[in-house]
């Protein structure tokens, strides 16, 4: 998927003007937030679990070479075939080769953000493999030919009527907008695919180094179908998904499911280890795992290491006032919300992704809910600083900021200026509002009320309130 994050502002404006989209986003984020809050309140150990989860993920990243080597060794010992890919193109090449060697024509796929990141579907399809998305939301967006708009609920932007028309048009099903009937249609259609597919493709929520196990968490059961019925299971996972021990899994699950959907556990958690054994009556004959770097070692090296702790729960999306306003598509690439605003510039480059890092009030709500305590606002600030250092900022903005800094460092001039503006404002600005500002500042006045400057400078008010008399 070609990133379009540089057009964030234009895409946001479109999203803000789209009333049905606004309603869908509000409904989804509201439900997710409510469910999360309830689940967290009902689990007194949540804060302790956050500390523990954060520590486990950070500890793993700090020795990722050791843990990843162990994962590879243990997985291979138990019969998995492990591949490594330096970038997305290489990962796609390996996946296409696996499909060809295994003689696969039809694959069922469970939701994977990494697969979106590397464009796996397109690659496999152009290699002649029919890939059917099996997560219901992903199935909907695949039928509609759209990218997912939320990492948990990919079709969050689609109302039931749209789904009904989509099934009518693409599947030839009679129109119904009863949600259970729509789900029933998808269940029936996808069950046929599960039984016929030669390969199941999944991501991984976690990779356990000590046992070489792949962990998958789903509610629908698509992850289980695709990893038990087809004769080949292909896993694509980022190298940061490793955790040291299978014993670390429970605490991370407690965090993940509560943060994601407000459940104490998802309906299905599968721990998959190695290939089929002689005594197994079913299950894939072969398990292939493609470990994908695609820029992750670069992130590991620098000051953004903490973003690789992300367990993709989506809590930061739901709580973010920016995501709540514009939804996932406005971000222009695979990852949205605060985690996406950090990941996109790192993966796609600052020239592409910097608008996302700048589109934040740094309110900190994301850091408050992050189950593994990623300091998201700090990382966004770092990205802005990098943008400046790399000379990507608008020179006028840099100049303006320099002037502002100089002014703030000179108390006398600042106060004189404040008094001057105060006097003028009483003459020019009525209703306590600034009517307009010139270009570059007009965003402050075009669509919102910008208060008129105070007649009295702040410093004077401050002194007065504190009882300090000059």
């Amino acid at each position, binding site marked *: 998927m070609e990133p379009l994050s540089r057009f964030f502002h234009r895409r946001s404006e479109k999203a803000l003007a789209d009333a049905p989209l606004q309603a869908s986003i509000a*409904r989804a984020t509201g*439900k997710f937030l409510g469910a999360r809050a309830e689940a967290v309140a009902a689990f007194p150990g949540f804060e302790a679990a956050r500390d*523990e989860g954060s520590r486990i993920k950070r*500890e793993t990243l*700090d*020795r990722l*070479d050791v843990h990843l*080597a162990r994962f590879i060794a243990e997985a291979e010992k138990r019969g998995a075939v492990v591949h*490594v890919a*330096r970038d997305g193109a290489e990962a796609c090449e390996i996946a296409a080769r696996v499909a060809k060697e295994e003689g696969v024509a039809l694959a069922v796929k469970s939701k994977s953000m990494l697969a979106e990141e590397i464009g796996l579907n397109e690659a496999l399809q152009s290699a002649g493999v029919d890939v059917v998305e*099996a997560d*219901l*939301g992903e199935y*909907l967006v695949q039928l509609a030919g759209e990218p997912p708009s939320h990492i948990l609920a990919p*079709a*969050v932007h*689609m109302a*039931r009527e749209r789904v009904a028309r989509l099934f009518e048009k693409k599947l030839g099903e009679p129109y119904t907008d009863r*949600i*259970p009937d729509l*789900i*029933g249609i998808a269940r029936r259609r996808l*069950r*046929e695919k*599960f*039984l*016929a597919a030669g390969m199941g493709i999944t991501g991984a929520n976690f990779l356990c180094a000590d*046992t070489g196990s792949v962990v998958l968490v789903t*509610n*629908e*059961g*698509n992850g*289980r*179908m695709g*990893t*038990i019925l087809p004769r080949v299971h292909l896993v694509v996972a980022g190298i940061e998904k490793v955790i040291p*021990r*299978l*014993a670390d*899994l*429970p605490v991370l699950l407690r965090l993940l499911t509560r943060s994601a*959907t407000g*459940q*104490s556990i*998802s*309906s*299905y958690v599968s*721990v*998959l*280890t*190695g*290939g089929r*054994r002689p005594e*197994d*009556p079913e*299950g894939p004959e072969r398990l292939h795992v493609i*470990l994908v770097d695609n820029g992750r*070692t670069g992130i*590991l*090296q620098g000051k953004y290491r903490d973003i690789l702790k992300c367990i993709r729960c989506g809590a930061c999306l739901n709580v973010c006032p920016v995501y709540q306003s514009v939804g996932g598509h406005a971000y222009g690439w695979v990852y949205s919300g605060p985690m996406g605003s950090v990941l996109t510039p790192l993966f796609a480059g600052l020239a592409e992704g910097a608008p996302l890092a700048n589109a934040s009030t740094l309110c900190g709500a994301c850091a408050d809910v992050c189950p593994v305590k990623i300091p998201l606002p700090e990382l966004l600030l770092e990205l802005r600083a990098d943008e400046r250092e790399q000379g990507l900022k608008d020179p006028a903005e840099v100049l303006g900021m320099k002037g502002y800094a100089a002014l703030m460092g000179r108390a006398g001039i600042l106060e004189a200026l404040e008094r001057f503006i105060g006097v003028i404002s009483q003459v020019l600005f009525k209703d306590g509002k600034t009517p307009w500002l010139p270009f570059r500042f007009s965003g402050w006045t075009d669509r919102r009320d910008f208060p008129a400057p105070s007649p009295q400078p702040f410093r004077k008010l401050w002194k007065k309130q504190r009882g300090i008399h000059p």
Partner: protein
Amino acid sequence: MTPADRKEELIRRIAVALRGRDGANPAPAFKEDREGTSGEADRIARFREMLESEGGNYLAGPSLDPMLPALGEALRLSGVAALFFPPGDDGARLVAETLVPFGPFTLVSLDEVRRPFAPPSAGIQTAEFAIAETGTIVQTGREGKTLLPGLLADVHVALLSPAVFVDRMEECLDALSGDPPRNISFITGPSRTGDIEQTIVIGAHGPKKLIAVLLP
């Protein structure tokens, strides 16, 4: 580059990325904050509460016979026509066979269930663990066990005995992590989705109903 070289090269690249950073802090010892383990009756009560809050059903009785009419009716109401159980699971076979007249149901094989357009079925299987914390049933592929009853059936009937209850997932993983079976499945309630308008609908891909049956 051979595949082995490529793996080594990735590990080396990561090691280089980590070098000289604040990465090499020795990790503090792993601490577990396990709550005290509880008694059997308490575990079963908490399991039931969690299972039911996740949309699962629970049946218990002094013996199998008095439970059969209720179980049969629950299956009939779910539209079940056929029953299947894994070969070698004697408990499940007994339940399935004695349940036949309460439908009436037919007994089908695993192969029949795998076919497209199989009749609506209930898969009956003895569960390996039941986790009180989350109301979770655990099935594994250990010793050649099948996972199809909890996968392809319309109704999943999990048979439990008091001995399979544990407090937390940790205990279950402890017991399995030495040589983990190919598949460990933690199953909590029926299959569900919220993908259309965040409205929860039961029965996305997996069973539409999960019935846990506690046998003495």
